[in-house]
């Protein structure tokens, strides 16, 4: 059996408070979906433990705090400005994706179609992230990754081919919507990796290593969780630092040797 290291997790997740509630009231994120507990290194079994801890010990005691008030909340009407806006935004996003479908069909006739399936772009994106923002990364590779992702996204909007319409079950359209998010997420992951000038947990910056190739942390400058705040599509995210304060343990370096 051939064995080689591969990326398993991105380690990060949604920011949550101590009650595991996200910045959206009523939306809780438990287990692997949130950022807490395991920090920069969260592999297989520890993610499983987090699922158990969050589900068994935390949520049953915290979600009630939110639910207790909900008893007084009546049925929410869909006839509000917020609903209309959200619906409009989703529709325009879908229309943009299905976009120039008619102009695309032109390509078919002359047999020179440059259009590609959603999967094609998804795989390209994965390849870029794997090559340049993978387990070992550095300023150079990350800069390259950022550029390639931007180029690929432009090409995606230009050339993606989504068969079918919006008013039927259409898994290709669904995939395209997800992929649009992945582009955004990929860029954020790259930005975050670029920002963190140290090697920590699953994040290995080749510029920061010891003589015998072990990770080199910079606790003086980077002992914090970087929580990125979303400001809407296409807007740069801003970072909030959550300092890591250890009262009962002494932090040390992990060494597998």
């Amino acid at each position, binding site marked *: 059996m051939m064995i080689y290291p591969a990326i398993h997790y991105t380690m990060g997740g949604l920011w949550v408070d101590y009650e595991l509630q996200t910045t959206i009231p009523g939306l809780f994120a438990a287990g692997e979906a949130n950022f807490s507990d395991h920090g920069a290194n969260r592999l297989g079994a520890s993610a499983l433990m987090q699922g158990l801890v969050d589900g068994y010990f935390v949520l049953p005691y915290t979600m009630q705090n939110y639910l207790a008030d909900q008893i007084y909340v009546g049925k929410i009407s869909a006839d509000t400005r917020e609903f209309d806006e959200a619906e409009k935004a989703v529709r325009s996003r879908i229309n943009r994706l299905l976009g120039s479908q008619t102009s695309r069909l032109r390509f078919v006739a002359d047999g020179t179609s440059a259009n590609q*399936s959603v*999967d094609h772009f998804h795989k390209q994106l994965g390849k870029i992230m794997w090559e340049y923002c993978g387990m070992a990364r550095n300023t150079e590779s990350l800069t390259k990754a950022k550029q390639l992702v931007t180029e690929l996204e432009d090409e995606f909007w230009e050339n993606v081919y989504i*068969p079918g319409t919006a008013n039927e*079950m259409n*898994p290709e359209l669904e995939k395209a919507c997800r992929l649009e998010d992945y582009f955004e997420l990929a860029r954020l992951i790259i930005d975050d990796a670029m920002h963190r000038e140290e090697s920590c947990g699953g994040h290995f910056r080749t510029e920061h290593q010891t003589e015998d190739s072990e990770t080199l942390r910079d606790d003086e400058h980077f002992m914090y969780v970087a929580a990125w705040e979303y400001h809407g599509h296409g807007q740069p995210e801003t970072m909030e630092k959550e300092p890591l304060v250890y009262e009962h343990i002494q932090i040390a370096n992990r060494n597998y040797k």
Partner: protein
Amino acid sequence: MNFTLHIWRQENARAKGHFETYPIDGISPDCSFLEMLDILNEHLINDRIAHPVCFDNDCREGICGMCGLYINGRPHGNDDGVTTCQLHMRKFRDGDEIWIEPWRAKPFPVIRDLIVDRSAFDKIIQAGGYISTTTGGVPDANMIPIPKHAADMAMDAASCIGCGACVAACKNASAMLFVGAKVSHLALLPQGRVEAADRVRKMVCKMDELGFGNCTNTYACEAECPKLIKRQNISRLNRQWIGALFGRDRRE
């Protein structure tokens, strides 16, 4: 490897479905069944042949229960104890004709092509497949001793992934193996014991209401279950049901 695929195409629940034939070649024996369908879809899209074949999938590692397909007349294909996503093309012979159909059962209407609506299972779970009793703080591990054989049986029952193959395999479209597994998993453990009688009543009534048939002891379900759930769970379901009818263990 080369195959000839006969795939059930159906635009929506009301449309009339039919088989469509697609040849496919150059498939690696290490390719999974769903990867082969991905490759087919890529080809259907890129060459503008047809709308890609819709099929359900999620984890692709045999744990979520989304991916059920009827392959050559067997739910999840011709390998034992695996889901469709874990079935590999090496289990077929080069040049094989493969017939691919959705689950066929009245409570599982086709949504499109190979995707069926399995929300009937969710409704059965919602009817009672949970523990609602709040018992205070989480007890320390090993505070409540549980006999090993009970823990093992509960664990086996809990491995049901709700895929629906048992229903699809059954000539009566019975969901007894699924419901039996869920009822057993909870009733075998002390936390689930409290509501056991009530639970079995609610879940069985819901199952009947949704149009699932009854068990006539053929056990096609057991033969096709990808998680090898045992038919003893159906017997336990029946015992629990009879017990509940006579008010044994009834606590409301």
